[in-house]
């Protein structure tokens, strides 16, 4: 078991954003996380990555209890993430952005600064941004920022990557390229993927298993085909039948 959550809850004042969620992800799995807006998907991701501390419950990663750990420790243990709205280091070049990931992630005491930048250029090449390596991140397009985040997440040499809506705001052509890139990433780096996505078609094709959140609670988990035909899920997304 790579990631295990047991009865994890998070409240913001009177609002329970995540309510008693338990889930497990095996090594090498591609797990989709779906749910309507405000279901608590991003909050769950923030709890795993250490952004928020849960009010109750236990989070374990690779046998280590990471409940309430700082994000940098979580990252060094092997969990990396992207953001729903890209958050690059705007005043750094694309190369330096990925360089931060290389130097910050896995402990590599013998890697020099030059070696780290060389390594970063490899990840930029992988996502197709090598020619933009000396461009400041603030000058990149939305698609470029999304793939830059993927490169930065990969650069930390994670065991698990959590992707938060890689397709949001992209046009159909860019979205296709982004999806293709995620598939290549899975093939080449054999990483485990925890993927939040609104576009059901993409999750249906890519994920081996889908977890559904609704009002902060896990209401279903299983193979995508089964889950989308579950009446509870249809009700959560479309509402109850009027007649």
């Amino acid at each position, binding site marked *: 078991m790579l990631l295990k959550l047991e009865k994890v809850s998070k409240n913001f004042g009177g609002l329970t954003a995540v309510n008693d969620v338990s889930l497990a992800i095996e090594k090498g799995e591609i797990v989709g996380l779906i749910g309507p807006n405000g279901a608590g998907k991003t909050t769950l991701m923030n709890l795993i*990555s*250490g*952004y928020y501390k849960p009010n109750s419950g236990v989070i374990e990663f690779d046998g280590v209890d990471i409940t309430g750990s*700082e*994000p*940098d420790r979580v*990252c*060094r243990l092997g969990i*990396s*993430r992207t*953001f729903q709205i890209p*958050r*690059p*280091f*705007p*005043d*750094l*070049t694309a*190369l*330096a952005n990925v*360089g*931060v*990931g290389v*130097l*910050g*992630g*896995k402990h590599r005491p013998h890697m020099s*600064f*030059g070696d*780290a*930048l*060389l390594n970063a*250029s490899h990840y930029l090449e992988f996502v197709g941004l090598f020619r933009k*390596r*000396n461009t*400041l991140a603030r000058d990149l397009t939305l698609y470029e920022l999304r793939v830059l985040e993927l490169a*930065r997440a990969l650069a*930390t040499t994670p065991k698990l990557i959590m992707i938060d809506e890689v397709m949001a705001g992209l046009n159909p052509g860019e979205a296709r390229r982004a999806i293709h890139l995620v598939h290549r990433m899975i093939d080449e780096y054999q990483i485990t993927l925890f993927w939040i996505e609104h576009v059901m078609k993409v999750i249906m094709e890519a994920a081996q298993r889908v977890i559904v959140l609704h009002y902060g609670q896990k209401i279903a988990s299983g193979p995508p085909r089964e889950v989308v035909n579950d009446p509870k899920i249809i009700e959560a997304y479309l509402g109850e039948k009027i007649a």
Partner: protein
Amino acid sequence: MIAVAGLALLPLVIMSQPDYLSLLTTANIYAAVAIPLAWQTAGIGRMNFGPQFFVGIGGFTAALLSIHLGWGPWSTLWVVILLSLGLALILSPLTIIARGLYFSLITLVLPLIFLEFTYVYTNIFQGETGLSGIAPLVQFDKILTNYVVSCHLSLVMMLAILYAVDKILRSRIGLYAAAINDDEDVAKTCGLNINRWKIICFTITSAMIAVAGWFAAHYYGTFAGVTYLPLPFLVKILLINIIGGRGEVYGSIVGAYFVAFLEQALTILGPVHYIAFPFILLVLLFTLREGLYGIYRKHKYREYYPTMRVRKR
């Protein structure tokens, strides 16, 4: 190299003018405070409004040791460095606990409390008049030689600080500083232990600023809290950083020389210069948003960001 050679030759060219030599030394002291502050601003992601606190720590430590124990400048230097490192380490959790405006307010108050301290304990710090009789940096028979050598020593101190900061900023620590300055939360997500790097940055830069205070004390032979600790000195340093270009190490030198020379040039206006000096600086703040160095960088920014270098084996 050309700029360094120019700065080194300048005191020799104007060696018959002690006023100008003193002005160059002052500019170098300003730059020695502003350069580490430029790194600190980026490295802790916060604006320190009290860099003069450590100028005071350095100056008073050197002065008290020199006056009471008869220590020379090269003996007091090590105590200044060690003491400021220790004190900065104690204060460094502020860079983690206090964010944004709170950090700025706390650091703003620190030197003012220190100033009050110098008034309350007049028997130690001599309040308004300050401490005098501090061992000079160099002592030659000719006064003019003293000025020229001191000016060169100030340049050496400033360049040593510049070299160290520049080397650090071109290493991985520079990249960490830039990442922390851009987005602390994302830097954490990338695995950086930002608390550790902020503490290291604050501690080292504070010690460097204290060295500028040490130099000022031994150069002038007197050290008064009222000269360095109140707000006018802070305003000068902050303006040097902003006019040079926020977070720009080389810009700090340009800014320091610009502010020192402007301040001197305006004295011909008489008492009006007290108003004219801040007024001109304010106008420059609005017109040069990216600082003097920023004008140059706008067109050539790439060379200041890490580019890939492959080592030949």
